[in-house]
């Protein structure tokens, strides 16, 4: 049995993958048979104020904004999907909302395999590649043995 909080964690995870995905990558993976849907909130471009913390751990402060596009839609069966994605690509937000909706239907497993897994893998691969290049610049200190310690 899955609890509400597990369901939310699962949904949080896929919404994050969709938000961080490159718009083109998501567009290329969209299923051919896209269900009819009604836009509850047409794709809308706006911003979100990004906050940091004083000294990384203290009180919040406003760092600056980031562009975000959001969209909400409803499938014929009544399922509602939300998309909040970085950048200013309306299709990206609409497609993210559509995948979010489909992930709550019986097509979830197919969508997970066809759309979310490849996106997550691409993201992981890019992260690993960057981390590996950073790792190659890690300094290895050698402590030189001083004469009198011999």
């Amino acid at each position, binding site marked *: 049995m899955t609890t509400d909080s597990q369901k*939310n964690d699962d*949904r*949080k995870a896929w*919404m*994050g993958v969709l*938000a*961080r995905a490159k718009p083109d990558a998501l567009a290329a993976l969209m299923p051919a048979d896209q269900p009819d849907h009604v836009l509850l909130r047409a794709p*809308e*471009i*706006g*911003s*979100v*104020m*990004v*906050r*940091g*913390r*004083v*000294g*990384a*751990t*203290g*009180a*919040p*402060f*406003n*760092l*600056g*904004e*980031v*562009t*975000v596009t*959001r969209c*909400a839609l409803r499938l014929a069966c009544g399922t509602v999907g*939300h998309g*909040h*994605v*970085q*950048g*200013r690509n309306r299709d990206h937000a609409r497609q993210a909302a559509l995948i979010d909706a489909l992930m709550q239907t019986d097509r979830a497993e197919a969508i997970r395999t066809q759309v979310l897994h490849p996106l997550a893998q691409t993201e992981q691969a890019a*992260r*690993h*590649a*960057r*981390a*590996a*290049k*950073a*790792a*190659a*610049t*890690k*300094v290895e*200190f050698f402590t030189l043995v001083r004469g009198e310690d011999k």
Partner: protein
Amino acid sequence: MYVAVKGGERAIDNAHAFLAEERRGDTSVAELSVAQIREQLRLAVNRVMAEGSLYDPDLAALAIKQARGDLIEAIFLIRAYRTTLPRFGASRPLDTAAMAVTRRVSATFKDAPGGQILGPTFDYTHRLLEFRLAADGVVPPAPTALATGDAVPHITGFLNRDGLIETDTPSDDIPPDLTREPMELPASRPLRLQALARGDEGFILSMAYSTQRGYGRTHAFVGELRIGTVEVEMDIPELGFAVCIGEVEVTECETVNQFKGSKTEPPQFTRGYGLTFGQTERKAIAMSLVDRALRWKELGEDNTGAPAQDEEFVLMHADNVQATGFLEHIKLPHYVDFQSELELIRKLRAEAMSALQKEAAE
């Protein structure tokens, strides 16, 4: 007297056309694309995002192209565009401890867990022009090593455990926002950090340098400098939970400053903090030095009268869009103002002359 002038409209239109042509430059040279600017002039893009206070690399690149590389003009364009966007809300504070770091160095601890990661830095280059770049741009792939994926904890956390450094008490207060409410002085530290984060790199750099040269006496070490990407999370009311809405690259700098103690605080290390969008390391370090210098009052230190300790001076002059707006407006027509000055001068001269004549006559 009112001087009405007509006929400027055609001149302005033609000036815009001339500007567009100059922007394009020699048409026998290939045109620069926005994507090229975004990828190959990334540090300029980062500066425009940091000081424009809007994270969007494509927009920043476009602004740089439109501004012909004038970064302050590009920042101006980004600030203007930003005002047209509806704001959906505010993110949860970034968790910079969870940063995917591409660079992380400490000047205070050699053996910090997570290691010293140099990343794509200019630090050890010889500052010799590479004429090879003028010939071709083929770059061999960067070497890789096994990334352990281990956590990279904040270095100042280690000093914290021994109580040797002041702690920043976490809170969830809603911070003031100078883009919505006019800045009120004295400013809280969150308000100061917002102003510094969007402040001019050159100005913040000079202020920070002045503290190093003795104006404010805050001898600083870079406790930690880290650059990397962090996820941005926002609470979505209709969902009832927070979701990741994207990822931003940031530079974070924590300085550690010697502190002899005061009437209110024991001797310990104190901290300065810098956080900026993108890989903007000079700015982040400078920001943390200026942040620390501005904290003299809350730490019970003496005001030495140094410019960097003067909150009004620093915060009111840090913004390059405000500064350039006021500075550059004086080149625009002031015919009426000047006419009145002219008449005043003439009147004063006439008075002075007649006084002289009177004196001579007596």
